[in-house]
């Protein structure tokens, strides 16, 4: 961990150049960026807005497990912001690099494979943070999002950086399984679907059966959407420090696993296409 930090410090210019390259790539295919990064979150929000307004309006229901119509819409809007902030990056390129033998270059160049992909992630994350801030301001100015507090927003923004680090670590781990698997997208989709459901992205965890929701506390999932959403809303009842420690512990586990898998995988690597 210490040597990685030292590497970042001394190789900062290489990180900066890679980040600039990532920004150029993202901006070169703007439609792609909108459809692949913003599109899914927007469509997801549109569906959830319609589903929940239908549940409250057509049924004349005033509250469901403590959520009024407006607090549920607020919850879903913050889930959208968390989604943009933390869950956009994917490991598609990473797995393709391994499968097509492109990582041979990283084994020769003085810029590691993990450094290259991490710097791309940092660039992506900075861009996403800007998009999330603009989206929040628009939603707040148009009255869609109510009760926006600067303190909660900054706290949520800070927490989400760690959530995105967790997502990156999980995507990296799945990506490097390409040493053994022909296709890693199945694992990525599996993890995404599971996390999307169990993290409270579709329905808040209060709506889950109590025993099931309690069990989820022993997994990383609630810390990925439910906790940051509640932090943004200023309604997280438990200790945020404890949540952060839990999230970081899971992230460290993923990074450790990635390190072991990378070391084993590189021994198997046959440099296809060389």
């Amino acid at each position: 961990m210490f040597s990685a930090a030292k590497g970042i410090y001394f190789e900062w210019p290489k990180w900066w150049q890679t980040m600039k390259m990532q920004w150029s790539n993202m901006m070169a295919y703007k439609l792609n960026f909108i459809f692949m990064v913003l599109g899914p979150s927007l469509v997801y929000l549109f569906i959830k807005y319609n589903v929940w307004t239908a549940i409250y309006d057509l049924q004349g229901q005033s509250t469901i497990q403590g959520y009024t119509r407006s607090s549920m819409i607020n919850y879903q809007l913050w889930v959208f912001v968390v989604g943009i902030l933390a869950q956009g990056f994917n490991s598609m390129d990473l797995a393709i690099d391994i499968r097509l033998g492109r990582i041979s270059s990283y084994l020769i160049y003085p810029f590691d494979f993990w450094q290259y992909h991490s710097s791309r992630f940092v660039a992506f994350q900075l861009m996403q943070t800007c998009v999330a801030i603009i989206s929040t301001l628009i939603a707040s100015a148009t009255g869609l999002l109510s009760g926006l507090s600067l303190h909660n927003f900054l706290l949520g923004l800070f927490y989400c950086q760690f959530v995105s680090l967790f997502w990156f670590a999980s995507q990296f781990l799945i990506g490097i399984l390409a040493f053994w698997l022909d296709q890693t997208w199945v694992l990525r989709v599996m993890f995404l679907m599971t996390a999307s459901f169990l993290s409270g992205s579709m329905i808040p965890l209060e709506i889950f059966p109590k025993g099931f929701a309690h069990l989820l506390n022993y997994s990383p999932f609630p810390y990925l959407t439910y906790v940051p959403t509640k932090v943004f809303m200023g309604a997280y009842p438990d200790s945020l420090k404890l949540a952060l420690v839990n999230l970081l512990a899971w992230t460290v586990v993923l990074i450790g696993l990635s390190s072991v898998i990378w070391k084993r995988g590189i021994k198997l690597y046959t440099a296809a296409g060389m």
Partner: protein
Amino acid sequence: MWPYLRVYKEFLRTSFAEATSYRLHFVLLIVMDNIFYLTSLLGVSFIFDHIHNIGPWDRAEFMFFIAFMLAVDHLHMTFVSENFWEFSYGIRIGVLDFILLKPLNAIFTIFFRLIRPATMFNFFIPLGTLIYFGLQLHLSVYSWLLVPFMLLLALTLQTSLEILMSMSMFWLVQADAVNFMRMQFQSLSRWPDFIYRYYARKFFTLAFPLLLIGSVPVKILLNLTEWKLASCSLLAIAVTWLLIAITWRRGLRSYESASS
């Protein structure tokens, strides 16, 4: 017709051969599909633990709709979905050239070439839940007889709309983005039409009839007197294919054949 069936039999054979070469991937696909079915059903079930109805439907009716859409999705995943990804790839690297040269209808070869056998083995979950909730609703014999035809109607409309969307790949540099949007549109159609607000409902019923995919067949199955609604789906299919024919010709004219 017969030559096409013979070719399709070959497509099936080669897809099976390819799928069984990567056994772990085969198993993972089955697990992935089951996670999708489970999360879709549990999500709605958890909501119904706290309410009795959503709009005009109670738990059994709503769950029957979800099960019906999962069954449509299962057929779509098995027989069509893989091909959309290949189409975007084919345009980008020029594989489409070879398909255009073959003495077969190119649209048939592009959109029905790849089959996903792993998903085929998962039929018991969507079919089982469809039967389970159908029995809870005491569907009539006629409704049960109509189920395969309604599934086919829904699948045809969904596939047609997605083929129409895919035609835009001829003009877009990064065609994968269209596939991502296509998947988002699938999520839109997995909810009944009455949950959408007025303008969204009108748009996705009349302009881009995604909401007809599941809502029309399920309404007919729940109430056979609504059979006339099927004409709306048939009309939507006809119009979609007319638009596919027009955009296909225009698309081919602008296709630059990357491999040549």
